């Protein structure tokens, strides 16, 4: 583990050698990792720490790997020196994303007795790493699994397909299967291939390479036998992973998974009965039922840190809402966790704490699905934990972590907002009529600051049911003496004539420029663009995400359906009383929607004011910086 982590710390961001190989140091080979994690966000977002962990998690079938190396060596005839040989095998992957250093691979998979994998370590690992497999881990696995019988052609195909797919669990699963299949095939055609392989490995008289060669001789005999258990093990690992860390975008129409997820859930949710067919893939629970249950459990839940528990309850009850607020609350809870943490005996801080954080995160997910901003923050925290130098003492490590989290809150959220305000205020001129929707914190700050600068403008606050967050914003703006007009979202086309600029907030900005935000934002942006009014979105860059989304249906969050049938403060509206259990009637309370980038004139972030087309650029740059912090 240590040896793996250390090279990471010395990563030099400037060096980027892709597809060009020298017998370089592990540092430079390492370098592409951040890029890999950027382009495959799903993975890295969940388990930042995974890079170091994963090789252990997926029990590498030893026999396969041992075969692989020699075979590859033979194939890549260019191998001259032992060290360059190993790189060359790697380097011929076209985009260089597969650059896990071979030394690491061999060490991780071979030097460790496989017996160390299962058992306690396995469990905690699986818990820690959440559902997806970290990039480098995958790399290792796939390389290790490279079946002995693979023809040159096949491996070529693999090379091409791997950079794209390797990061997902599916791809990994496939790799496993493939390996097993190949292993079986190899066992059959053993006689022919084994000699060739071993000769290759022997030819390169390298310590590293010969190491794998050792098991290979044994293994070839056992291949057929070994294939069986390894398959099982792999399957087990998969299952564990599923159980212990729900995929952040779990599809709730997958019944078996839902059942499993329920079994381990802390929060006992009852499924809403009358559901909208179109949204089966999203969780929808009866609201209000879990809270008392959880409260009684408060003292029974040993593993849950009280701070996390409190935040979870606040999410559940809706006391904390809004991307920034939720994110800050979570991070502060994690700070508490770190403060109170002490490493159990026989465990290392990095791994154990990552596992802990992961279990907390899955608890928070049960309370309310994560927002993208939270996902990014969690990724950051895990990354920091994973990168803690092993030389640090526990107290030092804890202090470092706490200050890291503090820094994240300050830099990425608080400072980012002030920068955004500074940028956005320049766009407000005297006489402007500004429209805003809902209650975006960033926009509110912009408006207040502009008012402090004595700019003369009017604000139209557009609101929508059922949350009526606009009223809160209206309240706060009035208190500061800003002239406001309040209306509901249906009237947007009525008032859009007088509007000069639209300021919107965002829960997240996706890399195709789509703004994922409070439901209704898309409508407002659409009407604004139909009336040729510029739409400005204020969003901190830490909310950017490289996911893409075209509609608001595939990924969304469902709110309490009963909030729709009951109209707060209007007792005269009671048409739907007593109909809530009618099988023909459903209520859909969507929380978010996706605004297409064509409606957005500009996104104001802490990196400046950019068009929506520049979002992927920021995502890339930010992620790079992020993984280096």
């Amino acid at each position, binding site marked *: 583990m240590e040896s793996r982590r250390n090279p990471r710390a010395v990563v030099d961001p400037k060096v980027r050698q892709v597809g060009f190989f020298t017998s370089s140091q592990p540092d430079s080979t390492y370098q592409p990792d951040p890029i890999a994690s950027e382009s495959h966000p799903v993975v890295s977002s969940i388990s930042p720490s995974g890079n170091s962990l994963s090789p252990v998690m997926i029990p590498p079938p030893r026999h396969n790997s041992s075969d692989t190396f020699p075979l590859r060596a033979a194939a890549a005839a260019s191998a001259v020196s032992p060290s360059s040989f190993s790189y060359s095998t790697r380097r011929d992957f076209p985009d260089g994303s597969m650059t896990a250093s071979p030394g690491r691979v061999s060490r991780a998979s071979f030097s460790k007795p496989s017996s160390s994998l299962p058992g306690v370590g396995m469990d905690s690992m699986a818990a820690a790493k959440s559902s997806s497999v970290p990039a480098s881990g995958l790399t290792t696995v796939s390389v290790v699994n490279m079946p002995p019988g693979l023809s040159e052609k096949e491996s070529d195909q693999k090379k091409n397909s791997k950079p794209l797919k390797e990061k997902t669990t599916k791809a990994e699963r496939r790799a496993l299967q493939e390996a097993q299949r190949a292993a079986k095939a190899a066992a059959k055609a053993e006689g022919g291939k084994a000699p060739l392989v071993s000769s290759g490995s022997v030819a390169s008289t390298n310590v590293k390479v010969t190491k794998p060669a050792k098991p290979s001789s044994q293994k070839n005999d056992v291949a057929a036998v070994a294939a069986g258990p390894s398959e099982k093990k792999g399957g087990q690992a998969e299952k564990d992973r599923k159980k212990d860390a729900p995929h952040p975008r779990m599809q709730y129409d997958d019944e078996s998974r839902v059942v499993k997820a329920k079994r381990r859930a802390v929060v006992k949710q009852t499924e809403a009965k009358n559901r909208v067919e179109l949204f089966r893939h999203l969780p929808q629970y009866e609201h209000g039922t879990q809270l008392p249950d959880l409260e009684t459990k408060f003292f029974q839940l040993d593993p849950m840190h009280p701070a996390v528990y409190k935040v979870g309850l606040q999410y559940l009850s809706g006391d904390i809402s809004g991307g920034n607020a939720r994110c800050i609350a979570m991070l502060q809870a994690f700070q508490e966790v770190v403060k109170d943490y002490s490493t159990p005996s026989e465990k290392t801080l990095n791994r154990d704490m990552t596992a802990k954080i992961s279990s907390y995160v899955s608890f928070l997910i049960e309370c309310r699905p994560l927002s993208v901003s939270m996902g990014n923050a969690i990724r950051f925290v895990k990354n920091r934990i994973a990168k803690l130098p092993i030389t640090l003492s526990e107290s030092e490590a804890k202090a470092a972590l706490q200050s890291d989290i503090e820094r994240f809150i300050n830099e990425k959220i608080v400072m980012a907002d002030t920068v955004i305000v500074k940028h956005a205020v320049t766009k407000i001129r005297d006489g402007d009529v500004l429209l805003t929707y809902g209650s975006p914190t960033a926009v509110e700050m912009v408006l207040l600051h502009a008012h402090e600068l004595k700019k003369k403008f009017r604000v139209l606050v557009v609101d929508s049911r059922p949350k009526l967050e606009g009223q809160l914003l209206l309240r706060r703006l009035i208190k500061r003496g800003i002239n406001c007009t309040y209306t509901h979202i249906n009237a947007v086309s009525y008032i859009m004539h007088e509007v000069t600029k639209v300021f919107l907030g965002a829960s997240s900005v996706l890399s195709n420029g789509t703004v994922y935000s409070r439901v209704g934002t898309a409508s407002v942006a*659409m009407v604004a663009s139909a009336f040729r009014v510029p739409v400005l979105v204020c969003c901190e860059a830490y909310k950017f995400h490289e996911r893409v989304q075209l509609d608001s249906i595939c990924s969304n969050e469902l709110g309490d359906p009963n909030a729709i049938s009951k109209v707060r403060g209007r007792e005269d509206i009671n048409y739907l009383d007593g109909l809530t259990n009618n099988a023909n009637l459903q209520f859909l309370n969507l929380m978010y929607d996706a605004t297409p980038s064509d409606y957005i004139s500009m996104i104001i972030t802490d990196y400046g004011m950019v068009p929506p087309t520049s979002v992927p650029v920021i995502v890339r740059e930010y992620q790079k910086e992020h993984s280096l912090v």
Partner: protein
Amino acid sequence: MPDVQSMVLEFVNKLRKRKIEGSQATARCTVELLRSVISHHRVPHANQASALIDAVKAVGAQLVAANPVELAVGNVVRRVLHIIREEDLSLATAAVAGFDLLDASDDDEDVNGKGIGYPGMSAAVVAAAARSTLRPPSLQTLLEGTPESATVPYTSSSGADSESKTADKSSVTRKLKHDVIEGVNQLIHEIAGCHEQIAEQAIEHIHQNEVILTLGSSRTVLEFLCAAKEKKRSFRVFVAEGAPRYQGHLLAKELVARGLQTTVITDSAVFAMISRVNMVIIGAHAVMANGGVIGPVGVNMAALAAKKHAVPFVVLAGSHKLCPLYPHNPEVLLNELRSPSELLDFGEFSDCLDFGSGSGSPLVQVVNPTFDYVPPSLVSLFITDTGGHNPSYMYRLIADYYSADDLVM
């Protein structure tokens, strides 16, 4: 007479206080009132038609002034005027034809064929002109068209008067009134039955497994959807709740009562859901001559979203909703602002609402419009009781129902 006057006043009051909701109810009340106005109106011997028209116009002006936003009132008044003109015209034609028969019965075919061929016969020209206004347009009538057709009815009736006997006169008078009331009854019937007429076409527009989005509460839409349901089509309906009036809740309730799969969504989710919707069906408040639609607030947003996702936007409108006017700035001029109490709790915001008391500068204004205007470019199809039409055709459809003289009242 006085009782009619009081009825008119009562109705005007109701309109002014917005007691009557919905264009259909308003239209029915208006036409019933006009019927009693006509039946109680004492018709003079000469120029009965113009006297009737004046009476109806006078009442109509009051009604329209009482609620200028409710375009159905004006529409119905114009329809009644049109009926009077038409009946008068047909009577005149009959009278002229009778005169012709007495005078020159052998020329009848020629009169039918080419009335212009008789330079001296003013009565024949008049008859031809009268027929041309009554007959559906054809190439022949276009060729025969006489420029003075609009003024013809008055001269013809007076001409007929002078030449027919006095006994005849009174019967003609009674006949005109009778015919007009007959026509108005027909109009009442038509307004009452427009739902069924429109609903009959549902089966041609809704297919199996369709997902339909609607918004606002419209009886026409309800009947339309139910008609399709009765024909064993199974489909799902998304209803936008239509805050702050929550008409959508009302509609959802009725749809559920009729056994339709209904999903209530918030108004803000319209854009999110529209990509999974096959058709947007709304009931119009009024349809303007350019094909623009005035509908419940929020309709424009739905129409824009539908346009963006290429979802057909279908408007159902009974013929009483077809307004012969071209809109100017309809979002503002043909709109109505409702009470802010529907949006904001006065108690909560009492300190900052503008009560017009002049104490300090008002900080909060609340805008709560009732209607929304959808430009014709966003509408895919109109379904009226006479069938489906393009927005660009509406002006012509409207021309069938109204006389050009009545457009400005």
